[in-house]
């Protein structure tokens, strides 16, 4: 597998904070979990109604999803297994590498 399969189980999750409190909590959570922020590029740009896309490892994404459910925050899982999408980005290259 590409990248030694390190992204297996990683997720990309979209959250749009509905108010300032949610935005602050989200910033805190992202910092704690040390997620990879896809958008916006900086945690300091997270405000109410700003689309946030985060890439989180297998373990971190479980913790993040648990937190979001408990906080009643809406979220969407954009990518449920990042490794699979990486392999699909350039399928011919992935095949050549495996061969």
């Amino acid at each position, binding site marked *: 597998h590409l990248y030694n399969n390190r992204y297996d189980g990683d997720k990309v999750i979209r959250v749009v904070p509905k108010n300032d409190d949610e935005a602050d909590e989200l910033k805190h959570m992202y910092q704690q979990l040390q997620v*990879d922020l896809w958008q*916006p590029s*900086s945690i*300091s*740009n997270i405000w109410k109604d700003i689309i946030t*896309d985060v890439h989180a490892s297998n373990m971190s994404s479980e913790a993040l999803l648990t937190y979001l459910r408990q906080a009643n925050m809406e979220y969407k899982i*954009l990518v449920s297994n990042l490794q699979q999408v990486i392999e699909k980005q350039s399928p011919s*290259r992935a095949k050549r590498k495996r061969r």
Partner: protein
Amino acid sequence: SILKYDYEDYHTLEEIEKWMHHMNRSHSNLVHMFSIGTSYEGRPLYVLKLGTKPSSFRKSYKREIWMDCGIHAREWIGPAFCQWFVKEAINTYKSDPVMKKILDFLYIYVMPVLNPDGYRYSWTHDRFWRKTRSKMRYNCYGVDANRNWKVKFCEEGASLNPCDNTYCGPYAESEPEVKAVAQFIHKRRKFIKIYITFHAYAQMILYPYSYQYDDIPNFKCVESAAQKAVQAINSAFGVRYRHGPVASTLYLSSGSSVDWAYNNGIPYSFAFELRDTGYYGFLLPDGLIRPTCIETMLAVKNITMHLLKKC
């Protein structure tokens, strides 16, 4: 094989460099390759200059356009587009009157990979690496090459933490890649009239300012060009792009190349955020390279013709 270069696939740094050498050798009437410096890890910073030499009865100088891709390593669609642009320019020079006019009247500098160290690292180690690969005193690597320009350096939207993805760097132009491009553009600033930098993902055409909400002095002109460009994109496959100043359309940030270029006298300065809006994000499948590049070509040609007609 170089002869069957696949423009609908993503390529490693080595493949892109071989391709640039090939284009330079095989299309010397339209393409001239040169290096403007070296990256932190010692890689050449290659630029392709496109355009015909002015004939003797025309002006001895031509206006110029600068395009760069790959400032952020993980945004692979950028370098893919830069390559597509060069291919299209060469292939359609004789058949497309618009492209012929562009290449006869202008020079276009295309830098397919502004951040070669980071790009290579995103292929070999970390697919989602964003920054350069410089290392100073601290434990973490890299600087955000789009926060390192000498314009409101390290203010809003940039971080002083070397481990952050938006780390501005120890000082402006600390990154040799940024310094090399800045020096080149500054030297050619009397001739360069359009600056375009390509990023992903958000589907937007953006212009200054990033660091403040005030309008630029030639707002009407630039806004009109951006509006026509998004209409051109939409005309291809119906994809909607938004447009506007970076600060109010995306978010506040400082030290970005689009603001630096504008403040250095380049009147049309744009940042393109290419496909998509999050379904694939940075992992846009190779099957979507073609439509993304086709629509983006229309926008770039549109902006260029806007310049030639004058606002």
